[in-house]
């Protein structure tokens, strides 16, 4: 059945417990765990953040720290060998850019299941990904 398996599956995470839940179903879609690619998108520092104002923290430092942090977290959960990508910018467009870059054939992510005002404010990343993705998207509820 290996011909049914995906070659490149992208999992966007935001460090919430819900977002990690996408790992298990994503794993089922691939033959080898190395086909899983994980992305976390950091927001740019506000220009008045003291670290940005004095230019004491570089984008490179931030990415590297997040990568190390995620690697520890993943190996705690029993997932090693997953490639971790860290980008800085608008979550939706960075996820899309990376999906194209790795030619993803599936994106797996959780919807936060918010309703009302907070849905209006926050539920949109998953929805925008669905709208703009070139490949199938699996949204967990």
């Amino acid at each position: 059945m290996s011909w049914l398996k995906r070659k490149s599956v992208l999992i966007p995470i935001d460090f919430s417990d819900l977002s990690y839940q996408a790992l298990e179903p994503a794993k089922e879609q691939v033959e080898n765990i190395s086909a899983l690619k994980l992305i976390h998108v950091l927001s740019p520092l506000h220009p008045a953040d003291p670290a940005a104002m004095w230019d004491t923290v570089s984008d490179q430092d931030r990415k590297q720290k997040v990568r190390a942090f995620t690697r520890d977290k993943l190996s705690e959960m029993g997932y090693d060998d997953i490639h971790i990508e860290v980008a800085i910018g608008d979550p939706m467009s960075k996820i899309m850019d990376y999906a194209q870059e790795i030619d993803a054939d599936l994106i797996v992510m959780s919807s936060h299941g918010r309703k009302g005002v907070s849905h209006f404010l926050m539920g949109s990343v998953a929805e925008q990904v669905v709208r703009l993705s070139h490949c199938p998207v699996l949204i967990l509820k």
Partner: protein
Amino acid sequence: MKQLLSRKTSLFRLKHYLYGLAFLLIFLPRVAFAQDDAAPAGFLGSIEAGVQGIVDILNLIFYFKVGGENGMPFIVLWLVIGAVFFTFRLKFINIRAFKHAIDVVRGKYDSEEDEGDVSHFQALAAALSGTVGIGNIAGVAIAIRLGGPGAAFWMTMAGFLGMSSKFAECTLGQKYRVIKPDGTVGGGPMYYLSRGLSAMGMAPVGKALAVIFAVMCAIGSLGIGNMFQANQAFAAVSNVLPFLTSLSWLFGIILALIVGLVILGGIERIGAVAGVLVPVMAVIYALACFWVMLVKLPEVPGAISTIITTAFSPEALAGGAIGALVIGFQRAAFSNEAGLGSAAIAHSAAKTDEPVREGIVALLEPFIDTMFICNLTAIVIVLTGVYADPTATDLNGAQLSAASFETVISWFPYVIAVAGFLFALSTMISWSYYGQQSWAFLFGESTTNIYKGIFLFCVFVGAVVNLGPVLEFSDIMALAMSLPNLLGCFLMSGLIARELTSYMDRLKSGEMLPEPQVAQETVLRR
């Protein structure tokens, strides 16, 4: 395929910008027409009426007078109690730690190995760019206009006592900050209220106070750190460029555009440039104040005695006998933010493992902002006597300060226009950071663009609306931040006092050993 998709994404974003642009194009001519009518009519009038409506409701909630008609507004009394309480509870920390504060800022205690993003000096400078705003020029003039010269005395007193509340909140900010997965620091009242009170077994109270603070700060940032700044920047600039007087909408759009370029990313250099120019302007401003004093040297003792004597006999002023005191405290808190909690957001980024040390650095802030810069403005205004000139009663805020300087240095209103504009710009950028942190605490990082949009709209509103409602809104919302913040600080005052005693003991004995901090582990926030 890839190219196509990336075009699709950028088209999607472009579409949003085009909608925004179309909205502005339809909207602008109406604003322009409305401006041609008599002031309160049309679109601008309805904005003003809207702001006034909100102010009336807020007045009822926070501004009821304690002690009858001529009593003290509750929220001002709250600030006074906070400042006095911490000054006595911490045994005049504002005096006894002053020299140590300067040593720390000079870098004597900096350690590269400590967690954090910036040095003590850098943290103080970042916090100061939020506090040294146009309030230092315009706010003092407003205080003297409303409360007489005596209000300046009470501003100084409030600055002196406020050093202690500033110490308390920034110590807590440093103690309960979080280090995010990317290594940057998150701190401020929302963190110390929720984490600090939770450590004391009051988790629900802490969480509630943190949320209340974040709501107040997100809304408050639109007043004190936005509309008031935009309003007085316009006053200062249109004062020297009279043709702009009827073009407030244009000024509002240009200002919103500049702030937008900085906070929406792209041209961060403007922020850095303003950050460099602000200290330069502050020095030029202070030198000019000294120059005015030098020119009128024989009258200086008289001006100072006017300030002190009228502080205790403010007859015939609005608010009765304690009017000057109320106005002084209000304007001082507005200027130096002591008790509001906002500065703790910036101070928590300092590289240290001693929370008390950054608190001590922070107490210099009200000193520089209020006791030094505001006082200089006050002495110039009283010295030149423009405030008492019966033909100049329509001058208020930045224009009153400009007119005062003009009597001695004829071209100084231009400097006030430039300095005021830059002070306002840097303060707006700083406060958009405070407001954004609060917004992110409530709704998450991914939605902060909505906050930025609201913030930019308010820059425009601030420039086109009259000072009255803008000042009232800004005052109430800023002071309301002190409600959850100081309540939390009171509850944790025992802890602050213990930390301080331990720090001072170790400082005196010559051992400054770092101790493990509860707040240093990485904590996840969505």
